[in-house]
């Protein structure tokens, strides 16, 4: 370590500690070790568990996650197009365990918000002082007639990365030149707002460079607009002319019914037969959040802006894709890994402060989201939120999308930054 910096560093600690000696042992005197339980080990849950431990190592933190290995959704569209192996998106929980987080691979079956306990399939019963609810999403398989959970191998959603991603990739590889690849997009809000449109580009890229240039990607959308629309349309046109067609909800794009056997999607007035059908069903907060009484009528968990605490139950903090925050349908917080992580850090800060008897710290919410249309063509959107009068406020003077008239260098930089972003968020959440 640089000696000058080290001196400054120690000085900073000294300055900080002189003021805080009196406050830190408040809970220690009570002789109770505070317990935090985190449900779900995705970007949000893992980040929350790790940061609570980082901020106050005296807190007992248990992370409950069913899977031993996590497969990240960001960049998973590049697995479909063959640019990336799925293993590059995977991580275990050993590193955050080494930070002192008690990692339990189990499945939460019930939460009792009044007794403040969590029960698991494995027979565990844990009590908590604060609960982070980060279960991600659950699909509504009945929303599209003719579809079902059994149909996911025929019409994969590939909207939880892993086996589904592989199936969609294989189906694309098996598709003949001239085939039609249908992507059915559910009504907002849904996970990863630019995901389907980035996927369209990645699929077109695969087709163009693998002897399937006559193929077509047909996006059947329940919505009339989408994230980074202008940038995507510009990129599609420049990179994959004539290969991608977007049908908005207003143009009869909403898929109401499917026939799985013939791979047909029925909209209000039309039917579209695909060679591959990537049907992304509507979704809502993970089942456990809904069953715990945290979700609103639309199936999402509303939160208190200063802390991310649930508006329904005290001491439960729904974060990540399961929560809904900000003004729908344009200024709501996007369901992205980056957003989940900044929400996790706000919740972690609020919980640590509360358990130490300290005032609520000022929250900061940021989202950065990259989409890669081709290896040297990246675009992004940035969101900054402030909390004013206990409301989420999207800062309109900042944020926004990459410029439409950007030079090629910017597109290249953003494609490279996307990978750097991914490596860093993976480390920040899981290492």
């Amino acid at each position, binding site marked *: 370590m640089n000696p000058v910096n080290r001196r400054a560093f120690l000085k900073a600690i000294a300055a900080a500690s002189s003021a805080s000696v009196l406050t830190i042992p408040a809970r220690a005197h009570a002789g109770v070790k505070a317990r935090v339980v985190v449900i779900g080990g995705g970007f949000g849950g893992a980040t929350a568990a790790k940061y609570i431990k980082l901020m106050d190592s005296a807190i007992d933190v248990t992370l409950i996650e069913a899977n031993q290995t996590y497969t990240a959704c960001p960049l998973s569209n590049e697995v479909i197009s063959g640019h990336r192996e799925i293993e590059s998106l995977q991580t275990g929980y050993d590193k955050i365990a080494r930070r002192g987080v008690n990692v339990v691979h189990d499945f939460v079956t019930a939460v009792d918000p009044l007794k403040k306990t969590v029960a698991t399939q494995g027979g565990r019963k844990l009590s908590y002082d604060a609960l982070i609810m980060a279960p991600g999403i659950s699909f509504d398989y009945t929303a599209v007639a003719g579809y079902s959970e059994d149909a996911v191998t025929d019409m994969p959603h590939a909207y939880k990365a892993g086996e589904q991603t592989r199936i969609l990739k294989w189906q694309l590889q098996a598709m003949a030149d001239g085939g039609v690849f249908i992507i059915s997009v559910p009504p907002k809000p849904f996970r990863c*707002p630019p995901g389907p449109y980035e996927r369209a580009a990645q699929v077109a890229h695969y087709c163009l460079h693998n002897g399937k240039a006559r193929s077509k990607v047909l996006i059947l959308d329940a919505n*009339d*607009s989408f*994230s*980074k*629309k*202008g*940038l995507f349309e510009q990129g599609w046109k420049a990179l994959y002319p004539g290969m991608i067609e977007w049908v*908005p909800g*207003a143009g009869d794009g909403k898929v109401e019914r499917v026939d799985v056997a013939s791979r047909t999607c029925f909209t209000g007035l039309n039917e579209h037969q695909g060679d591959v059908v990537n049907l992304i069903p509507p979704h809502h907060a993970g089942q456990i959040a809904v069953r715990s009484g945290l979700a609103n009528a639309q199936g999402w968990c509303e939160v208190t802006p200063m802390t991310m605490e649930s508006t329904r139950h005290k001491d439960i903090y729904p974060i990540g894709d399961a929560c809904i925050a900000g*003004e*729908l*349908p*344009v*200024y709501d917080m*996007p369901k992205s890994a980056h957003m989940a992580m900044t929400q996790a850090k706000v919740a972690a800060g609020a919980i640590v402060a509360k358990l130490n008897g300290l005032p609520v710290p000022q929250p900061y919410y940021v*989202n950065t*989201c990259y989409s890669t249309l081709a290896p040297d063509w990246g675009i992004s*959107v*940035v*969101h900054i939120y402030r909390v004013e009068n206990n409301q989420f406020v*999207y800062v*309109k003077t900042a*944020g*926004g*999308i990459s410029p439409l008239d950007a030079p090629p260098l910017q597109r290249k930089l953003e494609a490279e930054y996307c990978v750097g972003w991914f490596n860093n968020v993976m480390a920040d959440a899981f290492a």
Partner: protein
Amino acid sequence: MNILRRNVLKGAGAAGAVSVAMAAGLLTPGAVFAAEWNKAVFDSKDLGGVMSAVGGAGAAAGDISVKAPDIAENGAVVPVEITSNIAGTESIIIIGEKNTLPMIAQFDLSNGAQGFVSTRIKMGTTANVRAVVKAGGKMYTAAKEVKVTIGGCGG
């Protein structure tokens, strides 16, 4: 009786539209465009003028529902569904109160057509979508505010 027909003589272009349609051979006995397009009303930028031309707003009615999103993310495509449960509904008119051209559409219903239309309209700014209904010779109205988000972050 068609409400706008009263104004047909004022609308210089209205007759023109009909003759063009006739010249195009479109107007067969089964599909006559009885309601000549009323240029004067559709080209008017004056909300008050439009309201009186369509017969006045009439009484506010709970039997009319205007279904539209609270917030439209795309002002160019705002889904609007109007249901009139008033017996004998003959016409439904849609007005965008702050549109440069407020008059959006008129639907005259007959032979079993119910008091229901669903369409998509343009809105330049946050405003009321107003439905004016004519039933049994009387006018009724209802409105719903739609917030239009302009610019947006695209995210």
